[in-house]
């Protein structure tokens, strides 16, 4: 017999929302404390502020120390991480259920009484500068950074979360405190709990330990509209020593409230999201250009990215790009074959059903939307809405949203060879070369 664990949702502490997915399968509990604002609150010139604040939280509350907080976590058999997104900051923790309440007490002290000690700030600033140095080794991240800058010039979406050497050096303790004051309010908080605990018990624990979370209004983040950047253009990060290139092709995609969202998700899956898709079939199976290749839609409050990623050898990079652009053109012009769309529906509907076997996965289906400021039921009608999409709707959505004439291309490889070849292939002079350590 199939049984799913029970789920609960309730309000808490002056506006916080708590979502619980109870499961007694294993003596574990996963917790997520999500705040609905992230790096988009970083002021211009202070990029990296939200990330640095998150790292300082991890350094422990007043009266503690980084070493002490790590020992306490280890004593509880717990794992903890803090992730910053553009529109969210989430503290994730997992713990053996016998140690749940002490962990919640520890998380509460981290959130409510951050130390922000000058010594820790100086250390985390140095760690971030070291991380910026290490980015030079990460070709895919470098290619992604440049792609975002091309597609979102002068827009918050184009700014990195890590920051630059200059912006990170400019961040001071008062900036951290101000951001903390704005972010950590109960009205900005969504708590997700999955695992071996009842709704009653977790409610009691949260009330007992997080009752003092300030209750002022959520910070407002006004995301400017995204201007269309016309024409094809490219950037090459010069790494002549690489035997293969990291290749990203991107253009604007869609957002959470777009009426074209479901048709576009379906069309993207049919185009390049599965191993059986035309994109993978051609680039990997027929041409043998790249071990990894795929297309992806990233969703945001405003239009996120549609991208194709691959990593062909240096010699094949231009041929691989040419074919990817041809496939993209054909997809927009001619749409998806009806059989491909049927296949994509089967894939997406079936894959949804697979998200059932752990409490954490089930929780994510409601926690994600809640954190993004969407109704918790946002994905509830996912399957009927996908099934209802017609071929003409999918083709129209691709034509309306994907503009092959406006793609940006980012490649890490040998600029001496790639820049002239790209100019010729794209028919434009808008191809620039960049040093790997260009922050």
């Amino acid at each position, binding site marked *: 017999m199939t049984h799913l664990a029970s789920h609960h949702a309730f309000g808490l502490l002056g506006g916080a929302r708590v979502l619980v997915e109870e499961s007694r399968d294993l003596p574990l509990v996963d917790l997520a404390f999500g705040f609905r604002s992230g790096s988009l609150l970083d002021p211009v010139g202070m990029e990296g502020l939200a990330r640095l604040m998150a790292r300082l939280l991890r350094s422990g509350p007043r009266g503690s120390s980084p070493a002490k907080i790590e020992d306490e976590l280890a004593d509880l058999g717990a794992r903890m991480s803090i992730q910053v997104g553009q529109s969210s900051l989430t503290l994730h923790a997992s713990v053996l259920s016998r140690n749940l309440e002490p962990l919640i007490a520890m998380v509460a002290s981290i959130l409510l009484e951050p130390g922000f000690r000058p010594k820790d700030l100086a250390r985390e600033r140095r760690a971030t500068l070291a991380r910026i140095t290490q980015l030079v*080794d990460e070709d895919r991240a470098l290619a992604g950074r440049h792609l975002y800058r091309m597609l979102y010039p002068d827009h918050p979406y184009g700014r990195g979360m890590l920051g630059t050497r200059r912006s990170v050096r400019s961040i001071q303790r008062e900036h951290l405190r101000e951001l903390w004051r704005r972010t950590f309010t109960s009205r900005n908080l969504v708590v997700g709990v999955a695992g071996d605990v009842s709704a009653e018990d977790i409610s009691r624990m949260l009330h007992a330990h997080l009752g003092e979370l300030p209750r002022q209004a959520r910070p407002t983040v006004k995301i400017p509209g995204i201007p269309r950047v016309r024409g094809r253009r490219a950037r090459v990060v010069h790494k002549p020593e690489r035997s293969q290139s990291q290749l990203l092709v991107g253009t604007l995609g869609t957002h959470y409230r777009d009426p074209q969202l479901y048709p576009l998700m379906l069309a993207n899956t049919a185009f390049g999201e599965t191993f*059986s898709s035309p994109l993978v079939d051609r680039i990997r199976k027929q041409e*043998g250009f790249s071990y990894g290749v795929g297309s992806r839609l990233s969703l945001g409050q405003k239009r996120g990215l549609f991208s194709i990623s691959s990593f062909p050898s240096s010699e094949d990079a231009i041929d691989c790009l040419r074919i990817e652009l041809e496939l993209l053109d054909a997809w927009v012009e001619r749409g998806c074959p009806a059989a491909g769309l049927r296949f994509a529906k089967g894939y997406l509907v079936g894959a949804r059903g697979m998200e059932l076997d752990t409490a954490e996965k089930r929780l994510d289906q409601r926690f994600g939307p809640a954190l993004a400021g969407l109704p918790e039921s946002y994905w509830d009608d996912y399957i009927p809405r996908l099934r209802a999409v017609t071929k003409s709707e999918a083709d129209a959505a691709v034509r309306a949203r994907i503009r092959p004439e406006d793609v940006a291309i980012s490649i890490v490889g040998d600029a001496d060879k790639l820049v002239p070849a790209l100019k010729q292939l794209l028919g434009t002079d808008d191809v620039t070369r960049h040093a790997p350590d260009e922050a």
Partner: protein
Amino acid sequence: MARRDHVPKFATGKTDSVPFGGLTLHRFRLDNGLELRVLPDSRAPIVSYQSWFRVGSADEEPGRTGQAHFFEHLMFGATDTREEGELDRTFEAVGAEINAATWTDWTYYYETCPKRAWTRCVELESDRMVHLKLERERLLAERDVVLSERRSRVDDDVEGLAVEKLYALALKGHAYAWPTLGWARDIRRFDLRASQAFYRRWYAPNNLTLVVAGDVSPADVLRRVQKAYGSIPASKLPRRAARRTPAQRKQRRTTLSFVTPTPKFAIGYRAPAFGSPDWALLSVVCDILFGSRGARFPRSLVHERELCVSARAHVTPFRDGGLFDVWLSLREDVEPANVLELFDRELTRFLDEGPTPAELTRAQNSLEFSFLTSMETIAGKAEQIGFYESVLGDATRVFDRLEAYQSASVESVRDVARRYLDSTQRSVVEVVPKVGA
């Protein structure tokens, strides 16, 4: 000698069942030697179907390295009755996850699919095990894909390349010394004949453990598996005794020049076989020294002294014994010799004093936590069963491992650290940054 280290107690053609983490594991062996393990779990309408073949890069020969991994790629091709891509299409059409992996001692293929589709796994997996079509064009295209994978994971990746060099240095004389991906020169030489021979030899029922976990009934699984696989003949498998790596008498060192912003170290100490009781104790040592941000080396090298960006380690779970494998990525303007000196000093202190009781308890909590999370999903449980069956011959030994962590003492942990983390048993690859163009 049989390739298995441990033979379950039941006889050929018979069955038994054993408790497995609150569930029941049903064990069958077909007359052709196929081992079937079924773990019914009806909490979600999902089935994980995993085919574990006891062949990996350790079964290759010099000059033909990478063959096992390459064959894993070929197994996604056409069969006598099914077109190229049909396997992927069949499973992706119902939202299933399908993939495979190869390492030193095993290769496994898996599908995690909706319950309604699981019987297709039996049909398609038994088909490709026998009727794979091996053709030259397909082989050449896949060879390029494997070279692309190698470039991505090794040639252009500083850690990938340094670790490859470390294993070649530290385990010289054993098949674990070459990379599972294979040397590039060997990959370029893959040919049809060798692939056919490899297929005939290793893809046989007496070299397979089939694991089916999820919303299924054991009797139904057995009936279908018997029908689909029962007539496949066993093959004559090469005898493989546990192989010893030639003794190491002093530290080995080499350098790697690479375009990278800062120096790095890949360090390996000879580690025991996965089946040895010492392996579990050395994992406790690894957790105490590297297992979290508060563990000794990350605390000292990364957070307090700010000499490294990262400091991590793991013990490789190889049947014949691998490495206690350490990775240190240094910060700018740090003198590598100073880091290694400090590393040695900290390690010597640990070897002298052993862990504190608090450190031991933390490591035990951490390993218990990791064990539980590995058993969270249906696919995770199936993977544990397949891995333990393939390497140790008995899935239930996964629980012995947990017990071994819990019964470790300060003295036993210190003693095992002293035996294995000995500088004469160490190999070091120092990555020296080269300036890019």
